[in-house]
């Protein structure tokens, strides 16, 4: 049967994608960011997941104008990288797993999570930057992807606790899929950042460090963080961190921290990254 073997948390800053695509990753500004992922790329090479359930937010690319779903799941065969205003990133088309995605979608709805199902969508940096960070520059992504999207932009997003429980439900859905699949779940976005207004540039190292400290062993504390606390402490875009709690909820008890990284800045944002293996 399918099993979740590991979880990854990572920021998905668009400038990281631009740095890769423009050949700037060895420059002094960017080299420390990419060095933080060296261990993880080697680890992924050994871990060889079949599927990544990739939790991210659409940044006004395929969603947010006509429709603003709270939770969506992609059930398509493939996902094309979007043109976000400077041309599409030169990265491979992302291969989906429509049968597995449909199973998860149905299981979640039966489990009382009212998912919106997307049969077609283009994907932005929220998906492609994490794939580049964890798999490097490749001709073909070495995994199939089930996208799970969360509205973290139009207030109110779901609570962090609701996200954690969605993760628990995803784990139940995966465990009931009969095919033998090595599945990872990635929670992306964050860490602290604010991209608007006179408070733009907010970074809260203390908040971010506490979040990383507690993620493996004390998620109950993180589940209690309110919208107001995220907005105040982590910035208006730092509330993306609720998506890490979907990943954490899917991992169950006592995951093992294999790698951890934190760096300020990448463009406007604090970069956080963690690799957790399921117990």
């Amino acid at each position: 049967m399918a099993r979740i073997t590991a979880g990854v948390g990572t920021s998905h800053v668009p400038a990281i994608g631009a740095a890769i695509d423009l050949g700037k990753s060895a420059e002094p500004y960017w080299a420390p960011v990419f060095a933080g992922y060296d261990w993880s790329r080697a680890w992924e090479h050994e871990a060889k997941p079949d599927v990544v359930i990739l939790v991210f937010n659409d940044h006004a690319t395929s969603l947010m104008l006509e429709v603003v779903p709270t939770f969506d799941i992609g059930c398509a065969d493939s996902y094309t990288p979007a043109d976000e205003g400077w041309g599409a990133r030169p990265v491979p088309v992302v291969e989906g797993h429509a049968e597995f995605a449909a199973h998860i979608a149905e299981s979640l709805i039966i489990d009382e999570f009212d998912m919106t199902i997307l049969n077609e969508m283009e994907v932005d940096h929220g998906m492609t930057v994490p794939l580049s960070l964890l798999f490097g520059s490749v001709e073909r992504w070495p995994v199939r992807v089930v996208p799970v999207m969360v509205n973290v932009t139009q207030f109110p997003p779901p609570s962090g606790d609701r996200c954690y429980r969605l993760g628990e439900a995803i784990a139940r859905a995966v465990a009931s899929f009969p095919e033998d699949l090595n599945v990872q779940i990635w929670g992306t976005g964050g860490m602290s950042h604010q991209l608007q207004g006179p408070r733009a540039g907010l970074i809260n190292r203390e908040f971010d460090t506490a979040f990383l400290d507690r993620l493996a062993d004390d998620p109950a504390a993180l589940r209690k963080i309110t919208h107001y606390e995220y907005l105040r402490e982590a910035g208006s875009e730092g509330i993306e961190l609720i998506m890490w709690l979907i990943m954490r909820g899917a991992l169950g008890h006592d995951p093992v921290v294999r790698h951890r990284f934190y760096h300020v800045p990448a463009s406007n944002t604090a970069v956080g990254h963690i690799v957790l293996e399921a117990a």
Partner: protein
Amino acid sequence: MSDSPRPGPGYDAADLADIPGTTIFTTASSRRAYQLHRFCMSLMKAENRAAFKADEGAYLDRFAMTPEQRQGVVDRDFNRLIGLGGNIYFLVKISNTDGWSVQRAVGTMAGMSGDDYAAMMVAGGRSPVGNRSIKGAH
């Protein structure tokens, strides 16, 4: 059933309004900026970017945004556009079209030069100390 902790609603409007220099993008904002955002999303096509660059006024005539929103676009005044309902994930498509980095676009809202903003980020970003509450509650 899960034995999860169940927090309260997590916010009230007065708390959200008390965060300095921060505008919460709501359902009402989304409605108010719908035509502005339609324009922004149109810039995800190269031919539309070319048409906008060739004649900004004629291109903006295609969208029924308010005169204030239109002027905010012409002025690239992101703080004003956010005050008129806009959200940065839409607005950044304008600055992407202009060939600006996201950092340059965001930095314009902070009331600093691009160099000063970039230097602040390299030095660790804007501290939350003194930036949590207008009323001084935190």
